[in-house]
């Protein structure tokens, strides 16, 4: 909300500096987001009279003027402007002057003749016709009053002002007006508020009710509707002071009657509308819900198709205004308008909000209604408007009006205890301070012992109970009175991470230990991503939740896989010439129970892994996954089987299977997909469904005795068919070795000269150990023989 200091001063005697006022407003919750020192730059631009004009001897388009600048003496100014004349009073920027925009002016030479300054236009003074007549003309501003020569123009025209842009919180719609802000200023300065004047003189014999019929057919959406007739309107321009105020608030002057409605909106915070009576067919106003499909063209010439959810103001035939949003083009004030009906109403907050949003038509009026307007404000607003009409002699004001009121107007009364107010704050505020703080804010207060009864002003709809009063008190008393305590009455609680949270923290610690950096990416992705990554239309990945109002297609669906995100991050890193890295993300995927969503989806935690760079391959990820599983799911049976995931390289990827359940996949990204992502290197990525892995967690540690007897090692080399995997060989060894086998380590795989074609040599080391005794050669030999026999019978392996 913008508020010019000059306007606030009309209501409150402000006798402190702008900076001090800013601080006071800030401390009571009205943060000044910006302070605009309007026209502060302007300097050394003074009133001067043009005494004589001559054509420049060396230039056709220049005029040489002799001026009288009062105490600055008679000076020569050369100008290209054509609207000047001898005797004209003009603003002149003298040597060293500063214009509105900060530009400096110095003495100079123009085509051989000296010029001791420059004549100024309205624009160079930061003003328009709305601020001073003639200020918008192309050329020099011709001053039309007899100001003293040599006087600073910004002073005589009153250009300078300070405009506060104040952040008003959503609970204080009453502060969305100059008056509302002035009330707060008055409270912090502990000064009375002056005005605004609401008196007016009506014209005998002019009657609203005799002229027009008004009926409210939707009291739920329009709890109060006031209408007041003004006869024989003298439509014309607003007075300069009013134009200036509208100008300061960034509004253009339209006509005196329209300006009055805008003025009241700004000053009182009450939206108003003025109808041309002659356009209201049947001399009637009906407030009703629109019919489905009914249409209206608003003042800005936009057409809207309406529904029964929209409230409209109609004449006997058609809608003439979109209630609380904007008037209709069909009943607008024209230069020929003679008779006017003022509308001053309270429309339901929620309905205006819905209508404005649905139609995408948000106006100053709708924004006030959306924030909430108290029912009393309609009456204050109307009276203020009529006062202005009267003051400006704009027309004959009817003696009566319509006031269709469907809600009670009553002050909220809160009966509570002073001790309760203090308990919220945690300090004991002196009772007189409590009373005084509330009274300054126009609350009526009665105290008896610990009991306090508070009557809130009508415009304070936000006040509901003692916590609200506590806030008002501390706002005025000052937050510096709060004495910090560390939960002094609170019970001791254990706190800390639970097992699940600790597991995740440990998982991340392990991953960082493996050299992985954590990434964080958006939870929403483009729908197209699912096609790029070739997820099957029937897969879980393809069952995603769409956002109704996404920022853009790029961020429009909730992800069901972390894989696309990590691949994108690797792609962008490669693009930036970061040629290696190990990345992980631990985040949620969102899996709907049904589509479209009828209940909350399941949010499951997933770990994505990605490595890229010269030294990375499939086995980097495999090693990491193996170690993770052995850390968290000790003793679980882990298998790696060929993955048929469509985004993975078909022969360089694996599913991770624990106790028969697939908990994830990893491997080289399918080259065709890498291509689409502009990745020209091999990258290795994967996803571990943490929520599935979690089921196998077993990190309970039970001490296992260490053998006192020496281990025995044997190396074996076998030849076996090329198609036999190490996994198969390993399984056979484990099954056939007996209980003394401690470990199996693969150390060589060889194909070549000495090996039969289609076969390979596999060499491994076996370690045997017993807890009970030193193993004998016979025991070991027996175990080895058994292993070799099984390898032969099951896999056709021969000892080399």
């Amino acid at each position, binding site marked *: 909300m913008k508020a010019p200091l000059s306007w606030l001063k009309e209501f409150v005697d402000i006798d402190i500096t702008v900076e001090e006022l800013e601080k006071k407003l800030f401390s009571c919750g009205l943060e000044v987001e910006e302070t605009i020192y309007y026209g502060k730059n302007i300097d050394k631009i003074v009133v001067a009279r043009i005494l004589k004009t001559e054509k420049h001897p060396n230039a056709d388009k220049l005029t040489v003027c002799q001026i009288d600048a009062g105490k600055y003496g008679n000076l020569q100014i050369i100008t290209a402007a054509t609207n000047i004349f001898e005797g004209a009073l003009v603003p002149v920027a003298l040597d060293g002057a500063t214009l509105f925009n900060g530009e400096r002016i110095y003495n100079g030479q123009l085509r051989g003749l000296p010029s001791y300054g420059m004549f100024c236009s309205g624009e160079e003074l930061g003003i328009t016709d709305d601020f001073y007549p003639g200020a918008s003309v192309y050329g020099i501003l011709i001053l039309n009053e007899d100001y003293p020569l040599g006087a600073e123009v910004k002073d005589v025209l009153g250009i300078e002002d300070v405009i506060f842009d104040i952040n008003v919180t959503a609970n204080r719609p009453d502060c969305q007006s100059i008056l509302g802000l002035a009330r707060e200023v008055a409270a912090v300065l502990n000064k009375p508020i002056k005005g605004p004047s609401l008196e007016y003189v009506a014209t005998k014999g002019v009657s609203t009710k005799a002229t027009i019929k008004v009926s409210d057919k939707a009291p739920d959406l329009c709890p109060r509707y006031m209408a007041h007739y003004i006869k024989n309107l003298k439509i014309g321009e607003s007075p300069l002071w009013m134009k200036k105020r509208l100008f300061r608030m960034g509004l253009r002057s339209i006509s005196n009657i329209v300006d009055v409605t805008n003025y009241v909106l700004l000053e009182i915070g009450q939206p108003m509308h003025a109808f041309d009576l002659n356009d209201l067919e049947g001399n009637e106003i009906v407030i009703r819900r629109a019919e489905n499909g009914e249409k209206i063209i608003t003042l800005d010439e936009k057409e809207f198709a309406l529904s029964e959810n929209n409230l409209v103001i109609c004449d006997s035939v058609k809608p003439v205004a979109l209630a609380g949003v904007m008037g209709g083009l069909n009943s607008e004030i024209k230069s020929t308008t003679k008779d006017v009906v003022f509308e001053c109403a309270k429309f339901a907050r929620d309905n205006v909000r819905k209508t404005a949003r649905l139609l995408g038509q948000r106006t100053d009026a709708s924004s006030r209604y*959306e924030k909430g307007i108290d029912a009393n404000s309609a009456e204050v607003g109307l009276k203020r408007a009529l006062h202005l009409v009267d003051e400006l002699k704009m027309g004959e004001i009817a003696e009566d009006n319509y006031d269709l009121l469907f809600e009670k107007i009553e002050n909220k009364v809160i009966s509570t205890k002073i001790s309760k107010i203090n308990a919220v704050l945690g300090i004991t505020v002196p009772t007189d301070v409590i009373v005084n703080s509330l009274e300054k804010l126009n609350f009526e207060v009665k105290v008896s012992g610990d009991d306090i009864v508070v009557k809130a002003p009508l415009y304070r709809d936000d006040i509901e109970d003692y916590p609200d009063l506590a806030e008002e008190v501390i706002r005025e008393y000052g937050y510096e009175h709060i004495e910090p305590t560390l939960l002094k009455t609170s019970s001791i609680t254990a706190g800390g991470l*639970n097992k699940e949270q600790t597991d995740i923290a440990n998982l991340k610690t392990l991953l960082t230990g493996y050299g992985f950096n954590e990434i964080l990416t958006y939870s929403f992705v483009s729908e197209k991503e699912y096609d790029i990554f070739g997820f099957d239309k029937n897969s879980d990945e393809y069952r995603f939740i769409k956002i109704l109002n996404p920022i853009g297609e790029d961020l429009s669906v909730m992800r069901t896989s972390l894989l696309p995100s990590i691949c994108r991050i690797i792609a962008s890193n490669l693009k930036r010439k970061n040629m290696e890295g190990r990345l992980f993300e631990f985040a*949620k995927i969102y899996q709907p129970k049904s589509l479209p969503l009828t209940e909350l989806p399941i949010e499951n935690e997933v770990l994505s892994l990605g490595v890229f760079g010269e030294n990375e391959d499939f086995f980097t990820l495999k090693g990491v996954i193996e170690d993770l599983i052995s850390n968290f799911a000790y003793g679980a049976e882990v298998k790696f089987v060929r993955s048929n995931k469509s985004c993975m390289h078909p022969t360089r990827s694996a599913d991770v299977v624990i106790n028969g359940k697939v908990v994830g996949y990893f491997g080289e990204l399918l080259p065709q997909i890498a291509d689409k992502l502009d990745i020209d290197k091999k990258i290795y990525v994967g996803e571990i469904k943490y929520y599935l892995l979690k089921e196998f967690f077993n990190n309970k540690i039970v001490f296992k005795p260490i053998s006192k007897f020496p281990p025995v090692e044997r190396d074996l080399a076998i030849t076996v068919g090329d198609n036999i995997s190490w996994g198969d060989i390993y399984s056979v060894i484990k099954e056939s070795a007996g209980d003394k086998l401690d470990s199996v380590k693969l150390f060589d795989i060889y194909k070549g000269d000495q090996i039969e074609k289609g076969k390979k040599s596999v060499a491994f080391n076996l370690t045997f150990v017993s807890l009970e005794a030193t193993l004998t050669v016979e025991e070991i030999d027996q175990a080895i023989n058994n292993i070799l026999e099984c390898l032969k019978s099951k896999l056709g392996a021969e000892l080399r």
Partner: protein
Amino acid sequence: MQEKFNQIRQSAIESLASVTSMREIGELRAKYVGKSGEVTSLLRSMKDIPNDQKASFGKMVNDLKDEIMGYFNVKEAELKQKELESQFEKEALDITLPGKKVVAGNLHPLNIVKNEIINAFTGMGFEIFEGPEIETDYYCFQALNIPKDHPARDMQDTFYINDDIVLRSQTSTGQVRVMENKKPPIKILSPGRVYRSDDDASHSPMFHQCEGLVVDKGISLCDLQGLLDEFVKIIFDKQTKTRLRPSYFPFTEPSVEVDVTCSKCHGKGCSLCKGTGWIEILGAGVVNKKVLENCGIDSNVYSGLAFGLGIERVTMIKYGITDIRTLFENNVKFLKQFDRR
């Protein structure tokens, strides 16, 4: 005889002086103290020694043997030392060559800060609760005293899935979910992802918040400031102070905006704090009694405090990051800067 002894001793010492290898020492050992060495041979003349002197002669021989062996041992140790030294010399490394590459990774800066926040509050007895990110309108708004079409909904642009399901726009959603299931005393910290339809240098459509909630008997605005004072000292530094000023959130009353003294200039005023000396870091307040009542907690017995802070904001202030988007680009060169533990 004494002369003979001296001669052997002298000769042994002299021959030892020129010795340069362990092998030579071995030879000398054999020559002097071996089975038929010169010293050992002296015992052969025992027969010529009068009986009463035999014992002292034997002792003298043995003493000489020990003495000479002592010289050998010393020399041997010297030689071993020399040999080791020359071996070390040969094995000398250029220790300025680069180490074998072992690089630990690290958490994302937002999670580093999140963990710092978690540590600060778990130390004060808080538990961690993470609610769902896709939430019902009820938990995200209505239970927090924000009815449908309430102007407070304009404080944040919410992403909707449908009329009743939203992407949570604040972690305050956790408040109600916790209070419905747990009775006071409650000390909960609720960190997580939140979503708002905003995208520029200081707003990201997805970001992280951390909501704190205490409900117990006698909780007041003083406790709120005391708790936050403690927190900001942990997360920034010991000199950091807080300042409360009035604000509005539908779920707290009174509501406050909390500023901290600027971490860069400590309140003197600089570019980071735009000359004010203070930086806004979080919103907070005394839990609105309507919210307590919505959760079945008797507001006549219990009161609460709540606060919500943006993890991005704290992270950006702490590390001097000016564009929020940097945090989500995940450039490895950026990520690796946060490796100091």
